[in-house]
């Protein structure tokens, strides 16, 4: 059922708080956003390194299976048996030549086609299905899959535009920049957030909060050198890149600043945790890239990660992190990435607050459904900008969201 809510007349400079607490809206989103003409990040190509492997993922709340078949082709389909709807894969990853439902042993090939029904003709002439039965009347829904630089995306809507069109040229460029070589996965973890999924995505897109909520860098006087940066927003608003130049492009200025701060009683005792090399040769120390609805590609110095959300419920969102480097990294680079991983994740010097802030909003607005948030930092538009003190990409998110939702 469609929510009867009306968006405020001011447009995307106003966010009505019911968007975070309306149960009907949550269900509508599953259909219009997640099963609609959007591209959802599923996993890294490198997570399926061999033929005949699978891993589970999700599109919104829908469980999906991603497979690499015998020919090396990637497939994705709903993790639901055509028979009684049971999960087909109950493990997170594994090797398989076919997928067999645990409940009644119905079998599928790695493209998600039903290939066999156990005891279809019964046993000893008894039982079994009628000859005209159609066991695959309600098969697991298949996703169209496209890969860009080792990132695997899927869509449930056959009418979705091609992935690169959906992303837009600047976002494609931003992805190509980070994903410069074949990936080596370093590990992962997840966080369960007590908030609506949109609050986390707004947090990601909100470049305005960065130096205000996250005081790690300012407390340790690590960013006193001016950090230029800006914001790139895709034309339709849904995807964005926020970036800033590293203060320490050569390494030395940064270290010296760090040491000065340390002598003054601030600064880190062990600043090597942040030792960074400019692996892209462009001086950009931070690039946060998001793709509507729930994908984040992060370069924080030499710490690289993909993040995706699983929308378990209206106020229950799982943030899944996969941290990676490249197969051509030497030992020193891997160690650097592991050290800098201290900045991110549930215990991250920078990311820690991002796990909590969406929950603070959720708790604040649950009883304020009809009140509006004013989002006018940086004006009222959704254009790219050379400042990060703006909420333009948050407005971009809502512009794209409203178009998907018909709100």
């Amino acid at each position, binding site marked *: 059922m469609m929510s009867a809510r009306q968006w405020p007349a001011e447009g995307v400079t106003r966010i009505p708080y019911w968007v975070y607490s309306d149960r009907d809206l949550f269900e509508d989103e599953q259909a219009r956003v997640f099963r609609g003409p959007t591209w959802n990040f599923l996993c890294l190509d490198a997570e399926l390194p061999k033929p005949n492997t699978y891993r589970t993922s999700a599109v919104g709340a829908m469980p999906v299976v991603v497979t690499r078949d015998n020919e090396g082709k990637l497939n994705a389909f709903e993790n639901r048996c055509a028979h009684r709807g049971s999960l087909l894969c109950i493990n997170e990853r594994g090797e398989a030549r076919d997928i067999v439902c645990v409940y009644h042993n119905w079998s599928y090939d790695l493209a998600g086609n039903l290939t066999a029904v156990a005891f279809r003709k019964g046993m000893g002439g008894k039982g079994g299905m009628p000859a005209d039965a159609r066991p695959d009347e309600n098969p697991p829904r298949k996703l169209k899959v496209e890969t860009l630089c080792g990132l695997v995306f899927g869509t449930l809507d056959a009418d979705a535009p091609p992935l690169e069109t959906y992303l837009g040229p600047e976002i494609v460029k931003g992805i190509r920049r980070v994903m410069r070589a074949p990936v080596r996965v370093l590990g992962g973890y997840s966080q*369960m957030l007590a908030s609506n999924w949109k609050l986390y995505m707004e947090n990601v897109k909100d470049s305005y909060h960065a130096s205000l909520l996250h005081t790690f860098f300012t407390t340790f006087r690590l960013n006193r050198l001016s950090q230029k940066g800006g914001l790139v927003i895709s034309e339709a608003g849904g995807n964005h890149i926020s970036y800033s130049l590293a203060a320490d492009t050569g390494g030395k200025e940064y270290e010296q600043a760090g040491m000065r701060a340390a002598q003054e009683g601030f600064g880190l*005792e*062990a600043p090597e945790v942040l030792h960074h090399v400019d692996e892209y040769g462009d001086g950009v120390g931070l690039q946060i890239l998001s793709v509507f609805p729930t994908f984040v590609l992060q370069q924080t110095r030499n710490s690289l990660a993909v993040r995706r959300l699983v929308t378990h419920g209206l106020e229950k969102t799982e943030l899944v992190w996969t941290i990676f480097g490249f197969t051509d990294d030497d030992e020193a680079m891997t160690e650097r990435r592991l050290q800098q991983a201290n900045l991110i994740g549930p215990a991250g010097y920078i990311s820690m607050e991002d796990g909590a802030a969406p929950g603070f909003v959720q708790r604040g607005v649950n009883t304020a459904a009809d009140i509006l948030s004013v989002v006018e930092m940086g004006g009222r538009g959704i254009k790219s900008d050379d400042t990060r003190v703006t909420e333009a990409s948050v407005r971009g998110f809502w512009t794209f969201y409203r178009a998907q939702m018909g709100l």
Partner: protein
Amino acid sequence: MDVATTFQVQELQARYAQALDDDRLEAWPDFFTDTCRYLVTTADNLAQGMPLGMIYATSRAMLRDRVRSLRDANVYEAQRYRHVIAPPVIEHGEGGVVRAQTSFMVARIMHTGETMMFVTGRYDDRIVLEGPDAPRFVEKVVVLDSRQIDTLLAIPI
């Protein structure tokens, strides 16, 4: 394992947990040797041979930096832990260092009163038992049974 060694290891573990549970974070780095290894990771990462951690430090100075960040920089709601630690399984290592594997459960108590089972797992420790500053952890790998953390992990485990 002899009783004296067992007692020494258990005592160290108990005091370590007590320091964290009593919010004496400043004392936490002193449970480690100057050059040390502290890693909070997940059983899943370990099983896949993946090196990533949630917290990773290679010196006591890095541990002190983390405490200062928790005290002065990071924003998180007031909370406490209660560690419950099982008896360690101890094995002799090289050079006066023993290995100990110890199960733990940590409850998290929020300022709101909400109490939850926060994490379970095991400590894979290497402990130096002899010398002027002993006993201390040379290495503490905190292997969390689950890869999922509720909201955030601020206070060390």
